[in-house]
């Protein structure tokens, strides 16, 4: 709770407005943060949260509006100026340099003398004081995502900030790590530091924050005290309607095995990647299997091995619908009935500068779009129109460029394109990452319907809630190995969270792993 006289806000924004060529990102935003207050900024993707924070931190300049710092009107032309005022920011996509050590990274953001040994000492002191263990001499690329975030936070704390901005800080953390982060933040708040906490996770905001400002479409739609609200009421402020709920059919475990991975080990080419070690997994028709894990634990490598982007020497390691495919390329695996939705929408899921119809052709050409080597544009275009209509993709039509679509709409389009090919096996990576609440629940419901019609589905996601909502079974990936699988109804966030740090009982001693070969 606020500890100092709460009459003068530490930071007040008045009428902030920022217009981009295609969109009004912020429109007359008012916001006030008291000393020692943890203030949530709540909103969906694209509501204007990140733009607002960049305005405060001096990364971009507002077109209109005032910034008052401790009652004084200021302009923040650049981040250096913001840091001088006492504003620190922990970015959602970290701003660390991978080939430098922790202490070098910190030194880059700190003014004053360049004395690395002394700075290492200070890093150790701060990390001790706030319970943020990290070794200053290590290279950043060797750190886990959680450790990187600690480095970012320590980097801010060393500048003795009076306002700390955290942009979606928990999206990359295990539940246990989130709890530790909250302890640190509460400790900071009692010391009088103001915290701006940006998130779309309602339960976290309720647990942590003293006050909340809700944004929608670049405007403030309300302020509230989270402890006196329910997630439902806050969701209504955030998306303007009630949170949609997915309906889950009965689990059915009698289907045939569509994807079988047997003892897959693979050393990666990428020096910063993760080697896969002895992975076993089965996905049957009519079930959704989820792979949980903190990013950077081998998800990318496993996906490449399954999709065929990185063909394996051992053709037995991956089997699809009974065929050994380890050595086959993605096109031949798709011919067997596999469809794949990668994590990056622009660049791997779709070609940004091609039209939607052309993007349909890239993977769905087997659906009668070729005739002796020539393209049947009519068929492709009808397929695109169907996809747009069925999956409610908001766009200018089948001729619009893929990059003109918003993230959520493009994701609906890509998922739709793969689903309409009636796959026997569907593999998805982060299917709702950066997608707004409405579109996410639509995509999840679609996946559930597809499962009920007998498709085998494998989902890799960092959002635990999402996996618990749609999966029949969950496995965890950590340091390149896969845990035994758990039936979703017989486990909980707590256990999976433990497993995400690599601590699960040995295979064979666990009776809960009937599907592990």
């Amino acid at each position, binding site marked *: 709770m606020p500890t100092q006289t709460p009459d003068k806000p530490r930071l007040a924004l008045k009428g902030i407005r920022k217009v981009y060529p295609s969109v009004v990102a912020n429109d007359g935003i008012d916001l006030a943060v008291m000393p020692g207050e943890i203030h949530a900024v709540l909103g969906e993707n694209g509501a204007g949260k990140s733009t607002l924070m960049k305005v405060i931190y001096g990364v971009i300049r507002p077109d209109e509006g005032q910034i008052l710092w401790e009652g004084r009107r200021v302009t923040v032309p650049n981040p250096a100026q913001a840091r001088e005022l006492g504003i620190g920011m922990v970015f959602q996509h*970290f*701003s660390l340099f991978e080939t430098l050590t922790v202490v070098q990274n910190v030194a880059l953001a700190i003014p004053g003398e360049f004395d690395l040994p002394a700075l290492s000492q200070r890093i150790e002191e701060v990390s001790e004081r706030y319970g943020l263990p990290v070794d200053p001499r290590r290279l950043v690329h060797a750190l886990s995502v959680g450790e990187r975030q600690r480095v970012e936070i320590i980097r801010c704390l060393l500048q003795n900030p009076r306002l700390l901005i955290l942009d979606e800080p928990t999206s990359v953390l295990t539940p246990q790590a989130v709890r530790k982060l909250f302890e640190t933040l509460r400790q900071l708040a009692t010391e009088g530091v103001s915290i701006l906490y940006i998130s779309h996770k309602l339960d976290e905001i309720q647990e942590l924050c003293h006050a909340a400002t809700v944004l929608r479409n670049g405007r403030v739609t309300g302020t509230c005290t989270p402890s006196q609200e329910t997630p439902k009421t806050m969701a209504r402020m955030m998306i303007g309607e009630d949170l949609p709920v997915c309906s889950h059919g009965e689990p059915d475990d009698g289907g045939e095995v569509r994807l079988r991975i047997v003892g897959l080990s693979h050393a990666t080419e990428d020096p910063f990647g993760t080697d896969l070690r002895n992975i076993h997994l089965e996905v049957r028709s009519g079930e959704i299997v989820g792979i949980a894990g903190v990013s950077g634990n081998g998800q990318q490598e496993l996906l490449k091995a399954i999709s065929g982007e990185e063909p394996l020497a051992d053709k037995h390691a991956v089997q699809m619908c009974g065929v050994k495919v380890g050595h086959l390329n993605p096109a031949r695996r798709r011919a067997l009935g596999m469809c794949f939705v990668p994590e990056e929408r622009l660049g791997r899921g779709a070609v940004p500068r091609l039209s939607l119809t052309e993007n349909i052709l890239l993977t769905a050409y087997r659906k009668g779009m070729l005739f002796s080597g020539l393209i049947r544009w009519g068929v492709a275009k009808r397929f695109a129109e169907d996809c747009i209509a069925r999956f409610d993709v908001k766009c200018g039509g089948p001729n619009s460029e893929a990059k003109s679509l918003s993230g959520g709409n493009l994701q609906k389009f890509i998922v739709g394109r793969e689903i309409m090919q009636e796959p026997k096996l569907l593999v998805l990576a982060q299917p709702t990452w950066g997608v707004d609440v409405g579109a996410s629940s639509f995509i999840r419901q679609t996946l559930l319907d597809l499962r009920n019609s007998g498709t085998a589905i494998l989902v890799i996601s960092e959002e635990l809630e999402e996996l618990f909502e749609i999966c029949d079974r969950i496995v965890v990936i950590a340091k390149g190995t896969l845990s035994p699988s758990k039936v979703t109804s017989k486990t909980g966030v707590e256990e999976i969270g433990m497993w995400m740090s690599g601590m699960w009982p040995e295979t064979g001693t666990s009776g809960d792993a009937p599907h592990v070969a």
Partner: protein
Amino acid sequence: MGLSFISSILFATVVAGTPLIIVALGELVTEKAGVLNLGAEGIMSVGAVAAFAVAHHTGSPYLGILAGMGAGMLMALLFGLSALTLMANQVASGLALSIFGVGLSAFIGKPYESVALASVDPIRIPLLHKIPLFGPSLFEQQGLVYFSWVLIAAVAWFLYRSKAGLILRAVGESPVSAHAIGYGVVSIRYQAVLFGGAMAGIGGAFLSVFYTPMWVEGMVAGRGWIALSLVVFATWRPGRVMIGAYLFGGCMITQMFVQGSGARISIPAQFLSSLPYMATVVVLVLISRNRSTIRLNSPASLGQPFLPDA
């Protein structure tokens, strides 16, 4: 083959390696900031002709070097304008600069083609230059040779010990992050490009004022390109640039001695001429084949333009 023969090969090796070291270190700093300037050949040519002209008219070889450096920086500025301010493709801008520089130097150099420059006496380090075998090659050299050694140490210290060097590497690693924590990416890159231009200019000046010393069209003869590839094969490390440069220089000189000695050997001359290039590439590839060392030392944003948010 007496001691004096080996001694003269060593001497010539150091001389041949010197311009490569200077130019490659300049390019190394440029590339560490994430900018790929392929214009070294052109900048060297312009530096060489500017230095020659000024040394000829003033009679001072050291004013010539300054002129070469200035001309190199002007050329680099041209590159910066195109690649950093106007955000043109760095590869294309660099290639154009090379072609432009070689042509421009030939044009400016026409009146100087039949002019000779007095050769400059080397600087002798007292006593040390009398050491047998190594003495002359290490301690009886032109000032720029000593300069190239200081430069190696200075660049290594700058990159790995100073804060400014850390910032430069950070910009080359991730300009977006560097911008986010408040560094002026474009201005830092300009400084790196200008330093690279200055060094390439000095390298060119060394050729026309000390090495030959005269002006001939096309006298840079691909040394700019060699310097560029040295940087890559040395995985952006100053010490390895030196090894590569002397190795190249040594092979070059040795094969010239062999060809010139009239020794009865049945190796085709073309093969001998290509030996320095092959030997340098093979050795540098062998010492730098660890993939993670390459990743750790190569600037991740090399060649990518940086456009800050509005």
